[in-house]
């Protein structure tokens, strides 16, 4: 599924844009001008990676300093142990779109429990 995120001109380099879908997804615009989309929720605990520290192709969770590689979603630094899901980014007519991954997300225990409780 392709979801429009925002206009490219509205997302400066070094910034992130969060899509309030469930679970939320964020698009990162690196200082080098690359665009990446990953699940916004840290796999360790409930925190928004869009609020984190973007450096190169890596984002550091704003709370507990877990680091994720934006290209692969891999954990570069603990306490997180599971990768974040990555999504494809497509820019069409100056608008950033996210093609959502069909893979299962790795949500932190507290969020996963909440979602499971909500659907019961």
């Amino acid at each position, binding site marked *: 599924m392709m979801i429009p995120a925002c206009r490219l001109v509205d997302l400066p380099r070094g910034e992130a844009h969060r899509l309030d879908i469930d679970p939320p997804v964020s698009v990162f615009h690196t200082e080098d001008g690359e665009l990446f989309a990953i699940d916004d929720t840290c796999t360790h605990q409930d925190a928004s990676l869009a609020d984190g520290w973007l450096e190169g192709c890596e984002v550091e969770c704003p709370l507990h*300093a877990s680091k994720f590689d934006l290209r692969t979603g891999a954990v570069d630094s603990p306490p997180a142990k599971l990768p974040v899901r990555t999504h494809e980014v497509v820019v069409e007519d100056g608008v950033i779109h996210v093609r959502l991954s069909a893979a299962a997300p790795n949500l932190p225990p507290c969020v996963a429990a909440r979602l499971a409780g909500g659907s019961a």
Partner: protein
Amino acid sequence: MRTVAVVGASLAGLSAARSLRKQGYDGRLVVIGDELHRPYDRPPLSKEFLAGTLGEADLSLETDDEDLRAEWLLGTRATGLDRTERAVRLADGREVRADGIVIATGAAARTLPGSEGLAGVHTLRTLDDARALRDELARGGRLVVIGGGFIGAEVASTAYTLGLDATVVEAAPTPLAGPLGARMGGIVSALHVDHGVRLLCGVEVKRLSGDERSEMGVPPDGVRGRVDAVLLEDGRSIPADIVVVGVGARPCVEWLDGSGVDLDNGVKCGPDGRTSLAGVVAVGDCANWYDPRAGAHRRVEHWTGARERPDAAIATLLAGGAVEPGVPRPPYFWSDQYGVKIQFAGHAAAADSVTIEAGAADDRDVLAVYRRAGVPVAVLGMNQPRLFTRWRKQLAAASS
């Protein structure tokens, strides 16, 4: 370098082992730990683990597919370092000879003199400590926390969520005044009062009282019955079923006495973790690194320091001290209390002013910036992760 021994198997030791492999070290790697457990994450011990929302498997710091090709000597304490033999001696009589040695033995919780052998009295540092305290909190009762620092405050907060009656006793006029400054320490520690947890400040603990046997000192069997109250210097007696002593930690470096490694509030280190002995570096809570920004040595007990500093120390170890250390990021730590995310970066003691830049103290959603002569030196966030991270980046940029 054919053998590297990492002494200490918590976050700093594990991070050092990872750094060694990441930086291309291919030789023998021995990791020595005094606890039996594989490396685990300590911050949740006073929060989610204590509350029962995280289990032991969740605490593991290693991933399932990780292989550091290390020999793990766990459940055995290092008792000495022989500089001429280049050997680490262990409590079980073994010794590990190594060309490179990483000291990562951490810190141990300070205890209250006279509380030995009294049931119901806890410190909180290790997984075993947390298991014991969790089991007691689950039974309920009146909790008295001695020390209003971060560990004490987090335990009180967790106990509150579990429905216990809790009291925090702090010797200083304001809790957290050291790390946060008096004004912000007052605002953060007001969280206790917000939630009906009693906070008694500016009063020292005289002693703990237990059953009759405890009045006569420690009996031969070492068991003195159970604590029943905390007696304060001002004469008050606070009834207690469980007492948690959170009065700080001391670096675990006794095993280095006489080794030739310079000790001063832990292992005295250069700005890259090098010690007074070639081929020996120190990281984590036991290491008192020189901080070029402060122009002084600082022993930092934060999770992030234990995670990040080994990268620089291992680079130094592998290069034989021939690398120029980078300027580290300002120290960063976090705490979770009563559902409020507390974050701090920098050095509060360096500041001559503190201003609230966003949010409101009464709402406990503050973003406060500490400045010295107008220049930001530290930042505090309460439920402000986004703004906090921006300020934290600015602090790092300003100091690099």
